[in-house]
């Protein structure tokens, strides 16, 4: 790539109102992605029970390492649609659908979903919905994981000694950064390669990269 030359942003994308306003396709994608991820969450639930059960008997705080997958809804929604609220909405819809299908946590996992989505949303907002690279994605995953870990301390594990809670936070944070952050970023890149994201930022960037390689 002849990197140094900065690509000019199209005028429509530079207009802050147009950049942040939801088109129909943004809204429909957020909710449909939320429903699909919710179904995947529900499938992951079955496996998660076994894995986290095994982790709980070995060293309970280590079950945080399996928690990162729960944050993927927010990361995918936020990284694909790139509008304010997309991460939060996707994660809330996904956790609601998971609860509707039936899981071991009832509808209170919608609260978890809202906290996780808000965590990812916060980081994307701090970067003014302009940066969606791997570092930002990892940050978003970490903050989402930290929010969820604090919620779990208060609601699930108030009896744990502080050291163990911090270990839980550490495991969860690493999982959030790698599985949700880096993993979510990689999934979005792969999705862009299939052409399914052509109406969104990641799809346009994929075609820009492909064009730059041809040149």
């Amino acid at each position, binding site marked *: 790539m002849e990197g140094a030359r900065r690509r000019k942003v199209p005028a429509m994308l530079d207009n802050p109102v147009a950049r942040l306003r*939801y*088109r*129909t*396709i943004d*809204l*429909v*994608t*957020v*909710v*449909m*992605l*939320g*429903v*699909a991820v919710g*179904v*995947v969450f529900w*499938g992951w*639930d079955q496996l998660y*029970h076994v894995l*986290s*059960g095994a982790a*709980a*008997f070995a060293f*309970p*705080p280590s079950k945080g390492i399996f928690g990162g997958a729960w944050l993927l809804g927010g990361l*995918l929604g936020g990284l*694909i649609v790139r509008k304010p609220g997309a991460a939060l*909405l996707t994660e809330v*819809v996904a956790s609601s*659908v998971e*609860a*509707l*299908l*039936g*899981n*071991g*946590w*009832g*509808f*209170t*996992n*919608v*609260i978890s979903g809202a906290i996780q989505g808000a965590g990812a949303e916060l980081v994307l907002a701090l970067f003014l919905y302009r940066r969606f690279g791997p570092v930002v994605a990892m940050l978003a995953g970490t903050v989402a994981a930290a929010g969820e870990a604090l919620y779990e301390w*208060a*609601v*699930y*594990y*108030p*009896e*744990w*000694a502080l050291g*163990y809670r911090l270990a839980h936070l550490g495991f969860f944070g690493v999982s959030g950064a790698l599985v949700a952050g880096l993993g979510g970023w990689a*999934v979005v890149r*792969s*999705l862009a390669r*299939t052409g*399914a*994201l052509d*109406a969104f930022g990641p799809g346009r960037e994929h075609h820009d990269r492909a064009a730059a390689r041809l040149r």
Partner: protein
Amino acid sequence: MTGVLARVNPLVLIAVSLLALVASLGIRDLTGAVITLGGYLVAGVILLPARSGPPARFAAVAAGALSVAYSSWLLGGRHLEAAVVAGLRIVVLALPGAAVAPLVDPAVLAGQLGQRLRLPHRFAVSLAAALHRFDQLGRTWHELARARRARGSGPGRGPVSRARYAASITFALLVATLRDATGLAVAMDARGFARARTRSWAEPAPWTRADTAVLLAGVALAAVPHAVGALFVR
């Protein structure tokens, strides 16, 4: 038994389930935990219909509660009573939602979100459309699985092979979903969805007396552990 919960508003079912968090946070000791759980169980027996959904969901609640109880015992100084309370707290938190989840009709819920809670109508309608496509997701999954089997790329025996298979179908499902969303959005915009000023709804979203009664019962149940805590001050 009476099956009242099968007829109430899905918003109320979800509100009662969320209020269980308030109840769970109010549990301080074994007395409070047992009385609160007893209250929820009695309410459940009276209000739930006879066959309300798969019994396996209660096993999932029990598994979560046992795991939390065990870890609280192990990491919280090995106090048996505190561990039991921690486990019961999870049962109180999760049981109401797990019990009523199969009774929530997603289409009715979307209508209520738009008309009763007055969420932005573009969001409520999109959500209704997405939830209608729910069955489509199951069909797509089976199609993807059949296509893979026909090409001889089904899962092997080992866990790694199964995980790769599940990941590959999940990815294909996401691609199918995103393509569907693009098509659906174009169809909706072709019918003037983006610029619609007035919105009509297919179904009315009524609020009945039973809804109010069940909501009040949910608030009362959530207050039980706080009342117990206030009455039996140690």
